[in-house]
Structure formats: C-alpha cells, structure tokens
C-alpha cells in the first residue's frame, strides 16, 4: 500500500507540471485593469459602457459610460503598454498544443481539434497564414485552465455568435491575432484580446474581458459593453494604493500568475514600502475660447434700417395724399 501511494504521488508530481506547461496565463501587469487600452479610442454614439480603465492618447468624441479609475494617458497608461507587449511576448513564446490546417478556420464548425464547437484548455494556433472566425453556432470553452488562440491573421465573430464559458474563467482566455479584430453585432465575446492592428466592436457587443490595442485603435459603435473580469489576486501589490507618491508596504504575489485557475499556489512575501513616480500631465497652452465681438448681436443695425424704412414709407404716404 505504501508503495502504491508513493507511485501515485510520483505520478501526480510529474503530471502536474506537464498539464501546467500546456498553456499558462501570462501576467498583464498594469494592463490588467484596462477594458480598453489603445492609442486612439473612437466612440461617437451614446450607449457604450466600459467597466474598467480606458487608455488612449487620442480620445473619443463621446465619453463611454461605466466606471474607470484611469481614463486617458495618465499613469499607468505607458506602463500598461509595456506590460501588454510583455504579455504578448509570453503568449508568442508558448508552444502550440494544436495547430489547425493552413488557411482560414471557423472555430465554431471545425472538427479537427476535437468535439465541434467545444475547446478544452490549450494553445490553439492557425497557420498558413490563416484567419479565424467564430461562426453563428459559437464556441464553448470547457474546463478549468488557460486558453490561448494564436491567430496568424484576422479575428472575426459573426453577428449573434457567442463564446461561452463552461468551467473556464475569463481571466484565463487570451486571443492574439496578427491582424485586426472585428466582433459582429449582438455577439458575446470573452477573454483578453491583444491586437495592436485594431479592434472594432459592432453594435451591442457584450464582452467580458479586455481590448488591448496599445499602439492601435479601438472602436466601439453603439450599445457595446466591455467588463473587465475580477481577477483580484492578479493585483500586483494588494494593500498598495495611489498613482504617485509612496505605496505603503504590502504583500507581493510571486510565482505563477495567481489569476490562473490551476497550477501551483502563489507564494506571498513581505515587501518594504516603495516610492513610485507619477507620469507628468502634459501642459498645454491656454485655449482660445473667445468669440469675435461682431457676432454678439445686430440690434443697432435693425433699429437704423427700420427707421430709414419707416421714413421712406411715411414720405410715400404723404406724397400719395397730396396727389389725391
């Protein structure tokens, strides 16, 4: 019995790292709080809600609804951009656990990877190059673990399609297309999409995740909703706060990304207080908000013209009476 237990323990100790190495959740660092991270964010119609930070240098004509602790290019916008690049590098370095046949692929109808429409944790790659689409039937992400879709082309979802979680966490789903992303109207999407080529949401898209396009453009059309999932243990320094000044001492999670739903438990260490510097707010020159005075009104012109007209009319009437 003791021998059997030892063998099972050894097998478990070997099996666990093998499973974990299939796909691991990358750290998003400062980008983890952003619903939208972009260089240009376009939003021209009311009704869109972003529950999370919104980062950009060129902002939208219309403010989105929702709660954002950070909006615009203030800290930690620049750091979040670096962290987005680091996360993408991590994803690109992960080996594919399944590679689709060369060419475009519809994830909803493909049967080469396993059960049609159902995906288990792993790193899925297109090749060829090959764009990926999510058809009307949608897909299901089934089981606890990390899902990574490395797409050598564009990512699209058709109208009314859905990505559904079945035991998976939105914190552990990642999309990395090399060309632009377009999500169809009334579709449902899940996960973190890192795509500096641009991300466009047609109308009424529901998205639990993050649109990370630092260096590119994110466009929302109307009635779209992006909600950043709650991955609380991914916060790098629990207990710390503030965008400038000194962060009080707290606990720093180390080891594998604690947002990942499986794998070794993270370790906790105590850190000393650290000072962080604020990203300076750009100083513009003062705006020219005045209107030229000649547009104020034309009351005097109206009075003068009316008086002259009245004088001419009276002269006309008096002459008419004399003639008669």
């Amino acid at each position: 019995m003791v021998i059997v237990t030892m063998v099972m323990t050894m097998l478990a100790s070997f099996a666990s790292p093998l499973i974990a190495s299939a796909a691991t959740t990358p750290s998003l660092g400062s980008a983890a709080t952003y619903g939208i991270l972009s260089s240009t964010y376009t939003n021209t119609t009311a009704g869109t809600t972003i529950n999370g930070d919104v980062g950009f240098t060129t902002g939208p004509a219309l403010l989105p609804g929702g709660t954002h602790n950070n909006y615009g290019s203030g800290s930690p916008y620049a750091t979040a951009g670096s962290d987005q690049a680091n996360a993408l590098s991590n994803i690109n370095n992960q080996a594919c656990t399944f590679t689709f046949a060369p060419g475009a692929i519809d994830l909803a109808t493909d049967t080469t990877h396993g059960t049609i429409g159902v995906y288990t944790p792993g790193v899925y790659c297109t090749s060829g190059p090959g764009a990926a689409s999510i058809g009307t039937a949608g897909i299901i992400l089934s089981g606890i673990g990390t899902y990574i879709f490395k797409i050598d082309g564009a990512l699209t979802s058709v109208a009314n399609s859905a990505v559904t979680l079945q035991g998976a966490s939105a914190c552990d789903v990642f999309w990395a297309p090399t060309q632009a992303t377009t999500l169809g109207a009334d579709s449902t999407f899940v996960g973190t999409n890192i795509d500096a080529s641009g991300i466009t949401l047609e109308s009424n898209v529901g998205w639990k995740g993050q649109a990370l396009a630092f260096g590119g453009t994110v466009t929302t059309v109307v009635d779209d909703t992006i909600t950043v999932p709650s991955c609380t243990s991914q916060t790098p320094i629990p207990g710390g706060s503030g965008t400038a000044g000194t962060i009080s001492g707290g606990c720093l999670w180390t080891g594998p990304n604690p947002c990942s739903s499986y794998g070794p438990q993270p370790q906790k260490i105590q850190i000393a207080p650290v000072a962080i510097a604020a990203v300076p707010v750009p100083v513009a020159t003062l705006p020219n908000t005045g209107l030229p005075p000649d547009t104020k009104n034309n009351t005097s012109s109206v009075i003068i013209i009316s008086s002259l007209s009245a004088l001419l009319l009276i002269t006309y009437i008096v002459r008419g009476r004399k003639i008669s």
Partner: protein
Amino acid sequence: MKSVPNRILLLLSLLGFASALTIVFYPLFKKPIHTSVASSMRLKIPRIGIDAAVESVGTSPDGAMDVPQNLDDVAWFNLGPRPGAVGSAVIDGHSGWSHGIPAVFDNLYTIQKGDTILVQDQNGITTTFVVRDVKTYDPKANASAVFTSSDGKTHLNLITCTGPWSAIQKTHVSRLVVFSDMEK
C-alpha cells in the same frame, strides 16, 4: 427726395423692412451651433446659472488645449486627470455671443471665491468643488499651474477668454482661470 419717384420710395421702404426682418429671424433658420451633444458628464455652477454637457478634448495642432465643438458645452482636457481624481482637472468653455445667444462661460467672470462648482459623472455621482481663486493670464503664459499640481489634492480649474478682442491676433487678450478645490 422730391425727385425720387413714389414707386421707388415704396420699393426701398419694403426692402428695408425685409432686411430688418432677415437680420432678426435669419439665426432661427440657420443651422444651430448652440445644440448640445449628448454626454453623460455635466458641469453645474448653480449661482451663475451654468448647467452644461462636458465634451472630451485633447490639444489642438498649436499645442493649446482644444475647445468644445458646441457653444453650450464645456470640454474636459482628457490628457489630465478626470474631475474628482487627484491632480488638476481642467475644463474650458467659450465666452462671447453668437446670434444673440451667450456662450456657456460668457458670465464666468461673475464667479466669486467660495462659489460651488458641481461635476456629475456618468454614474450620476456628483463631486463638489469650491472656488479658491480667480486669475487672469496672458494667452502665452506658462500654464503649468493650471494643468498640474503636486499637493496630492483634487482640483478643478475652469478656463475661458476675457478682456478686449484683438482683431490682429483674432483672440481676446487674456484668459480667465478659476481655481477650485474638491470639498472635503
């Protein structure tokens, strides 16, 4: 006047009245520029009757803070903190008149120390600021005190134009800046 025929007198008179009516009513038919854009954030200064939608702007090509598209709106400088966040949030608005209607900040010069400024965010939450100071600046002056602060507190600064109009520079000669602090 005696040599002018009666018909010409009547014609000139009618043309005059028509011109006066055109001047008065033309703005009503022209595309309105006072139309407000839909926005979920609002700025209110109750004592001087300001209640405006807040647009979002960055900088213009010459490096100046941009201005709102509509004369009835104000604009928040989106490269700085949001109103209610630590630092100096900045909002500007037009002053002057257009077609007999005053722009949103035309009477901002009447604001006084101690007046209350309210900013209602997209969730309906209102942050209250109290006016601390009112200053005038040269348009080209160093504006770092307007856009930045290092005291770790929450400020809101309002900007509009003031002073005589310079026909050469195509702008008013000064800028009015209202400094306010978030109410504790």
